């Protein structure tokens, strides 16, 4: 199905998932305007959210199934496999977040169903980011996503740390948006367009990129660097991740980051593929992000902070895929982000079961003896940790393997070696979690008695564990999907750049 965005019907069709989600979000908004007092209202809002996400996923599936695509036409909206796969990741991350939020919100007495509305708007922003084929669309989508997540970060408004997180995230995020916008302005000044494909076509014919363009590109990288929490733009991440309500932390670490990376891939490879300068910048960014993230994480005692720094490290691994580029790099990113979304959400979900009052005070030692009391929870967390470590048999390994193949195919052997060496460092903080759960005794008899998940969160964790193990052993379908998605990003760049 070839869509021509000049025709209104086709334009609406190409935005079908976003429209479905917007519709649901408005319905939910109306609902919570009247019903926002009791636990029951909150639950209904949660179920409506799940319904919204499922129907969005079906809309995405329908477009994917019909091979909907905007081909041969310059458009503000891209419709390709890359977008559909990325959308599924966002919707999946949001769904898992809703599932682990049910009891959390009740337990922490955050009885405000607006939580779910914001979650939907955040997801909408992410989906538009992956869809944007124009810098302006990407910027607007980024703002839509960010504003929703700023509020969600400070949702636990009675706790100072949550408020601190929101404020920090908002200030630094606004700053980053400024960088991004200024970068877009400079790129527009240099090329006269904000459309990615038109920029790409211009640059591939230009002899040398102008200084203004390079400055714009640098600012864009800084802007994206903030959103993906790459070192040295990661300063906000630990505090924000630590202070935000834990399901939101999980959502930020997976969905927000995935969306920023998806947009980054599109911008870099559809618009700036012909500019060589940024490859080296990405190389260094990847190296310091991997080393920095892993080394900082090594020093953390609090599990939540450790996971926050580890998410910085994982951004570094994905940056290796960005540096490697090509179809392999793009597909590797998608496979990795699927794996990372699963394992990170799983780890946060188990943390929610253990923690109270924001979880920031759960240290690794607090998990001591969990395996004896709650063997399945401990098993789930162990699988997530091994997957984060990149251990064979789990999806995390498959993702890392793919990134390594992409890097070596691009001739980046040194980068591949640095990736694995920094992964060794990560064993120094993932293993102690397993060690505490399985090899240390319970500190007191009843330490883990009230550690439990409700049935929704249990379903989420089960999905995560099954997914991690399944993709770890049988990733064939995932590869095919990622492969065609990777192809679709690069095909656009080459076909339209040719004339």
């Amino acid at each position, binding site marked *: 199905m070839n869509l021509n965005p000049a025709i209104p019907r086709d334009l609406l069709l190409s935005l079908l998932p976003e429209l479905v989600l917007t519709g649901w979000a408005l319905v939910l908004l109306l609902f919570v305007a009247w019903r926002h007092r009791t636990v029951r209202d909150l639950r209904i809002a949660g179920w409506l959210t799940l319904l919204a996400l499922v129907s969005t996923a079906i809309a995405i599936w329908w477009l994917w199934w019909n091979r909907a695509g905007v081909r041969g036409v310059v458009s503000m909206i891209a419709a390709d496999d890359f977008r559909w796969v990325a959308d599924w990741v966002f919707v999946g991350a949001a769904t898992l977040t809703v599932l682990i939020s049910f009891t959390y919100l009740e337990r922490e007495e955050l009885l405000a169903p607006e939580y779910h509305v914001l979650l939907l708007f955040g997801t909408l922003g992410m989906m538009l980011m992956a869809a944007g084929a124009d810098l302006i669309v990407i910027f607007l989508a980024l703002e839509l996503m960010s504003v929703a997540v700023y509020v969600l970060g400070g949702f636990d408004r009675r706790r100072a740390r949550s408020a601190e997180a929101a404020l920090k995230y908002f200030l630094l995020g606004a700053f980053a948006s400024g960088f991004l916008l200024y970068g877009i302005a400079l790129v527009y000044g240099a090329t006269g367009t904000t459309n990615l494909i038109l920029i790409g076509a211009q640059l591939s014919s230009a002899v040398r990129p102008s200084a203004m363009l390079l400055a714009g590109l640098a600012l864009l990288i800084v802007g994206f660097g903030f959103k993906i929490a790459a070192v040295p733009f990661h300063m906000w991440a630990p505090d924000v991740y630590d202070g935000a309500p834990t399901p939101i932390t999980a959502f930020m670490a997976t969905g927000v980051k995935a969306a920023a990376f998806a947009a980054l891939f599109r911008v870099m490879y559809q618009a700036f593929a012909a500019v060589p300068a940024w490859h080296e910048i990405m190389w260094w960014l990847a190296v310091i992000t991997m080393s920095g993230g892993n080394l900082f994480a090594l020093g953390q005692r609090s599990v939540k902070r450790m996971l926050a720094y580890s998410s910085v490290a994982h951004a570094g691994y994905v940056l290796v895929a960005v540096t490697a580029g090509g179809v392999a790099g793009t597909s590797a990113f998608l496979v990795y982000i699927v794996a990372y979304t699963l394992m990170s959400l799983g780890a946060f979900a188990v943390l929610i079961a253990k923690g109270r009052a924001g979880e920031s005070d759960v240290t690794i030692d607090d998990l001591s003896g969990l395996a004896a009391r709650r063997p399945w929870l401990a098993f789930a967390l162990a699988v997530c940790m091994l997957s984060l470590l990149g251990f064979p048999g789990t999806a995390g390994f498959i993702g890392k393997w793919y990134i390594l193949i992409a890097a070596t195919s691009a001739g980046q052997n040194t980068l591949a070696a640095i990736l694995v060496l920094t992964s060794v460092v990560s064993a120094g903080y993932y293993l102690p979690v397993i*060690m505490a759960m399985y090899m240390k005794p319970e500190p007191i008899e009843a330490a883990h008695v009230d550690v439990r998940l409700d049935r929704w969160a249990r379903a989420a964790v089960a999905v995560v564990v099954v997914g991690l193990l399944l993709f770890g052993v049988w990733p*064939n379908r995932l590869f095919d999907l990622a*492969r065609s998605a990777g192809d679709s990003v690069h095909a656009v760049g080459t076909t339209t750049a040719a004339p």
Partner: protein
Amino acid sequence: MYARWVLTALLAWPLITGVVVLLLPARLAKYVALAASVIEFAISVPLWWTFVPDGGMQFIVDHAWIAAWGIHYTVGVDGISLFLVLLTTFLMPLSILGSWSYITKREGGFYALLLVLTTGMIGVFVSLDLFLFYVMWEVMLIPMYFIIGVWGGDNRLYAAIKFFIYTFFGSLLMLVAIIVLYVHAGRATGVYSFAYAHLLSNAKDLGPVAWWLFGAFFLAFAIKVPLFPLHTWLPDAHVEAPTAGSVILAGILLKMGTYGFLRFALPFFPAVALSQTVQLVIVILSLIGIIYGGLVAMVQPDFKKLIAYSSVAHLGFVMLGIWALTLQSVQGALLVMINHGISTGALFFLVGMIYERRHSRLIAAYGGIARVVPLFAAILTVVSLSSIALPGTNGFVGEFLVLLGSFRTYPIATTLATTGVIVAAAYLLTALQRVIYNPLTQHENEKLTDLTPREIAVLVPLLVGILWIGIYPKPLLRRMEPSARALIEQLKPGTVQAPPAGAGAGAGGGQQ
């Protein structure tokens, strides 16, 4: 028919039964696990007869796994891996039986992990696809980590994480090297595949990259062997692990390193591996291992640590024999690998048995117990003598062949290595004397009970192995020879003498 399913069965059976054991009530765990491992051994035994010594891979199974990357499930054995597979299936039932009363908490988990570990170990030895090999190589790390960390001694957490991080560090670099080889072979031929044969035939024209790749493989395997100075994880892990863990660590896990050299590092990068520099480095490190390992073993107050350091020395012989690359030395190295598994395994069992009674591993805590536990003393003596390489025991055949074969290639180094045998006699005989002879001074030792029938059942198969290989090693040598010959022919064409007509036994036949 048997040839088509045997290796898959050997890999799948322990994994399935491992899960079953985990789900069963803990009190049944050891019975089911023992039965499972005995069946596993029974499945593997016909390999011995059906194996045709022709130097090639046999029992090959090949299925596509992840087609997009050319990853296959390919397994097979040749004369090099056959005995390592058999050693694994042979030691597993004994390890389970040896843990019978030693493991008292979380039994289900322990025996399940032992079974999963079996899959990993056999997988390493039979994989003919480098992806599969890498997965298996890492997979066996987790069960061992848990076995040391959960059921180990007082300092188990430190030992477990040290073991894990050392191995993980080496293997991740190997992972990058495998992928670089894969991309290189793919570029050269247009076929992207992790198949062993494919990568082997296309691992040329690498230029200086070959040095880095060899370095990565070297590091992974040298840590596992372990070669001096990468051996420091070993004493900790061996000492802290429960008996079964120590037996498997010494008996099988260390062999993965030497196996890796034989199967991957040498054939892939012969030019680098046999360059003057690398030869010199490896021979010197092996020599240091042999002599230094022996000397350090001599001063250990802890019996388990003594055995651990003696492993460093034994594996030094293996490395020397592999790098000397003569028919005798390679066969000898293979034989030392088997012998070390049997003798050191038996030593660890014996130490474990006496530890269960007395709760001390210190040599000084014993003395004169031969009168109290005569059977234990007799078996310990025989096993120690085999570890020292007394003629008539298995240790002698292996080490003698290594020394004989290596002398042609490295005369000086081999002469020095011979002192290692003397050092071994010094530390083991001293320890033996202090433990079972000398006057009985400590009252706690007067009430020690002798070996139970279960313990005798653990030790008798090992004793049979010790004497059988010591007296009549020909069946083993005959099966190893064609593969060893093929390996040397591939690395140093034209250096192996033609096989003596009719006598397939080759060099080893006349040793007894």
